[in-house]
């Protein structure tokens, strides 16, 4: 009996001198995992044009029907995104969103991605339907807010959408030099990288194309059945 008492009371006495594990949440925020699914963001090109082309693939991919997109045509005088169309209306209903990430996988231009912001609460239900102006990324430094005119855009001479699919894995030196200016526009930090490294970065950005089936788990489940 005395041993049990010593163990029990000793445990609580010892625990008193251990540091607390509490996270003081509103004051101190914990770092989330890199691939954490938080609030969405609609990205822009470095010159301020929107990446969203209003294709509605995200809305189609959404299992919870939380996304509403309506596309509209770009005109020569008012261009919001490269290409024919742009997302005129873009809404995500966070009352329905399950943060599964299927929308960001469906997005062909990497326009829709997810941030690490998870503090999504509101007093009214309407406040949880985020509209395009809330979702759009802030303008890059020095960029002009859309709409731009086609003349301005042509003068920049940028090839928009350099996704992993558009990159030639066996790119020659000349080719890579050709795209170097474009890389600088995307992110100055990428200029410092060699071609191989740059392709790695692009590959990491596009998670889906490089996704591999986990082998071990599959064979385990087969054994079980």
């Amino acid at each position, binding site marked *: 009996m005395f041993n049990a008492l010593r163990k029990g*009371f000793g445990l*609580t006495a010892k*625990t*008193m001198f*251990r*540091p*607390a594990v*509490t996270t*003081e949440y509103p004051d101190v925020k914990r770092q989330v995992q890199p691939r954490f699914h938080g609030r969405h963001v609609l990205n822009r090109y470095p010159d301020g044009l929107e990446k969203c082309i209003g294709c509605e693939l995200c809305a189609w991919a959404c299992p919870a029907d939380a996304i509403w997109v309506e596309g509209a045509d770009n005109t020569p005088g008012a261009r919001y995104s490269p290409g024919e169309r742009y997302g005129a209306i873009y809404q995500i209903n966070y009352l329905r969103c399950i943060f599964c990430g299927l929308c960001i996988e469906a997005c062909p231009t990497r326009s829709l991605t997810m941030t690490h912001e998870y503090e999504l609460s509101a007093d009214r239900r309407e406040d949880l339907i985020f509209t395009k102006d809330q979702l759009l990324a802030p303008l890059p430094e020095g960029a002009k807010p859309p709409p731009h005119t086609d003349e301005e855009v042509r003068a920049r001479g940028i090839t928009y959408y350099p996704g992993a699919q558009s990159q030639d894995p066996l790119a020659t030196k000349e080719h890579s030099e050709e795209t170097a200016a474009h890389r600088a526009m995307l992110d100055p930090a990428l200029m410092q990288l060699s071609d191989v490294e740059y392709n790695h970065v692009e590959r990491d950005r596009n998670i889906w194309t490089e996704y591999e089936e986990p082998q071990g788990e599959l064979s385990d489940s087969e054994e079980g059945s």
Partner: protein
Amino acid sequence: MDLTDVLIALLVVLAGFGLWLTGTALTIWGERRVVAKMQTRIGPNRVGPLGILQTLADGIKLFFKEDITPEAADKFTYYVAPMLSAVVAMLTFAVIPFGGTFEVGDREVTMQIWDPEIGLLWVLAMSSLSVYGIALGGWASGSKYPLLGGVRSSAQMISYELAMGLGLAAVFIWTGTLQVSEIVEAQSGTFFGFLPAWNIGPQIFAFVLFFVAAVAETQRPPFDLPEAEGELVAGFVTEYSGAKFAMFFLGEFMQMVTMSAVTVTVFFGGPNGPLFGLEGTLLGALLAHFYFLIKTVAFVFVFIWLRGTLPRFTYNRLMDLGWKVFLPLGLLWVMLTAAIVVAQETLAQDELLFGIGVVLAVLIALLLVSMLFERRGPEPEDEDAEPTDQSALPSAAETAREAAERRGAKQIEVDV
């Protein structure tokens, strides 16, 4: 008795009341902090440095909560019951000396509100009155659940009051007085020149008895069955809300402080301690007060430690412990104490030593015999005492296995 006497008495009462009230407030905060530490949490830390004003915030919150009085309640009793709980705990504190004695002019002031000759009987009387708060609260709510909860709680408190009374009775017999100041006086000095001559030494068993009973009496964990969240939806306080609910729990915390003070006074020498030649001065009185506070805080900590460590008892175990263990053992101890006191007063020293020798010899013989029996295997009483876990489950497993064999099935391994 002139005006100065009245003033001095008033000041002493104020000092005692203030000490005890701030003590209670700090206890509520301290409990939350300490239990949090024991669970590797932080605890209250928003209001004031280290959250020390948390009790104030809690109190303000509770007083502004919606106050509901049930239609069926007996209004007068319903309002009086929570006050009774709190006031009774306060009254007990009146007989506790919480500091030393000092001289003002030609008057001697003792830091004790009241020192009646019935002393500790007052403590017992007041702690039994606290049952009324609970029983009346349960009854006056005009609902069945609180009534059941109240009955349960009063049954618990009465069972432990007997053990508590026996623990104190042993001390009465040992010191030969009921007056608190004399009990404290009897504990000054030392044993063998270095151990403080507190009652905890000779009366260790009475202390254990008294302290466990005090925990049960104050409805503190692990004996916090009156709350009964699981079974009775908060027991006797089901129909109480806001400030009246707070009064009940204030009463509980006040009792905790008071019971710690009583334990310190009766078993740990109260405000006794080395005074370094400051006897009779104000500084000496403050030093004594400091000793008293240290000891009391230590016991409040033990109360909290119990809460942080032990799970809640079930009701049947609680009752068994009170009636079947503490009551007989308490009676035995009182008898033994009485026998020792009578022997000390009547017998000569060599006779006394011979008697002690005989008792020790008998005890050692009993111990040897019990060890011999233990080696031969488990005693049959053990199986009777605990028919729940060890004996019941393997037999269940066996019957399952037999049944499986009868059906011709493969032998099933039963996880016990």
